């Protein structure tokens, strides 16, 4: 299993989450569904945050993510509006500076992906539209060879054409890189049609989990 959650219960400001267990194999798209405030973003934060404010176990490729934050984050591509890039620096400069932190960083691939996704490498990240910012982050995650992509409401507010294009990119990721995508969304049709697995959260609890067709 690529990602496994065992009885994850939040503590501190994440105490809202209660006893969440599911697993995601490599090569699949998984939707994390639920209304606003159901705990979707909080669950993703449990995985990417330095402070591990939860009880239970989260494993990535069989290894507890608490043991080595550096190693965990080498493998994760986090795409979120809250992701703090250098907004007064260009997309290329962000890649040149932050890319250094990753062992498998490929600057050429990053520039190629930006070009393919129609994001100007010379534009300041703070001036990118929301859709472009999401594309920029996806390119960044792909360029450092992530195996797990965590996408927080990435398609919210996107027009249908772009959304289709975005899902083509995601399918490419899981197809060619043997990676998986865990994506939060509250658009039900998107989850039922595009995802392989679905986990539904309500008030911080997992109320159902399974293959997309059976769950929704």
């Amino acid at each position: 299993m690529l990602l496994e959650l065992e009885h994850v219960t939040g503590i501190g400001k994440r105490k809202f989450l209660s006893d969440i267990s599911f697993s995601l194999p490599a090569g699949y798209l998984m939707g994390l569904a639920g209304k606003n405030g159901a705990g979707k973003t909080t669950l993703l934060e449990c995985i990417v945050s330095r402070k591990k404010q939860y009880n239970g176990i989260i494993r990535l490729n069989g290894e507890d993510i608490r043991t080595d934050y550096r190693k965990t984050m080498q493998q994760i591509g986090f795409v979120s509006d809250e992701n703090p890039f250098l907004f007064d620096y260009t997309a290329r400069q962000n890649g040149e500076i932050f890319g250094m932190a990753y062992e498998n960083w490929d600057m050429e691939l990053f520039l190629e992906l930006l070009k393919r996704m129609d994001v100007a490498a010379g534009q300041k990240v703070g001036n990118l539209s929301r859709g472009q910012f999401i594309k920029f982050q996806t390119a960044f995650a792909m360029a450092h060879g992530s195996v797990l992509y965590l996408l927080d409401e990435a398609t919210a507010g996107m027009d249908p054409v772009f959304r289709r294009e975005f899902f083509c990119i995601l399918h490419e990721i899981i197809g060619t890189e043997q990676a998986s995508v865990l994506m939060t969304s509250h658009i039900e049709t998107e989850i039922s049609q595009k995802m392989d697995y679905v986990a539904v959260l309500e008030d911080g609890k997992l109320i159902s989990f399974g293959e997309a067709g059976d769950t929704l």
Partner: protein
Amino acid sequence: MVHMREKESRKARQQENRKQREIIRRMDERLVAYREDEVLFGILKWFYTGIILLFLLMPAEMCLEKGGRSMGFVGLMWTTVIAPMGYLAIYRNIKEQGKQVSYLKKIKYLPLDLRQIKLVRIGYLAQFLKKIVLIACAEQLVIGTLICGQNIFLGIAYAVMMAGVIPLAWNALIIWLEK
């Protein structure tokens, strides 16, 4: 056997930490090179250094006497609080849309060890203060000992404490506690 394994894993960890510090230094270099206010920080660095050295021109004996204590205190505040904070500002904050944002917040999801980042910052400060201590010792020797006839050890101890030990200890603590 267990002891050997422990030793090996410690060695591997140390090596990994060294590699991390090298990455952080290279990231800092690039970050500074792309900053639009890099020149301003360069000028400020010389300004801070100049004022420190002006304060340390005063012989230690004079600063420790009743009449010179207030001057010594102002000098200590400058070398300990104002100058190091100004010197490190280029690495600690990023100007973004007119606001200063903590660099640690910017890298919160990157695969970097916060402890190593802090050690690198402390290292920058130590390098900066080391040069100042050397010049301050020379100042104390020439002005304090040769011209005013003060005890040579008092002058050197004063320079080391004022420009080295106290500022480094205080700022290392501030950097270490930063979240």
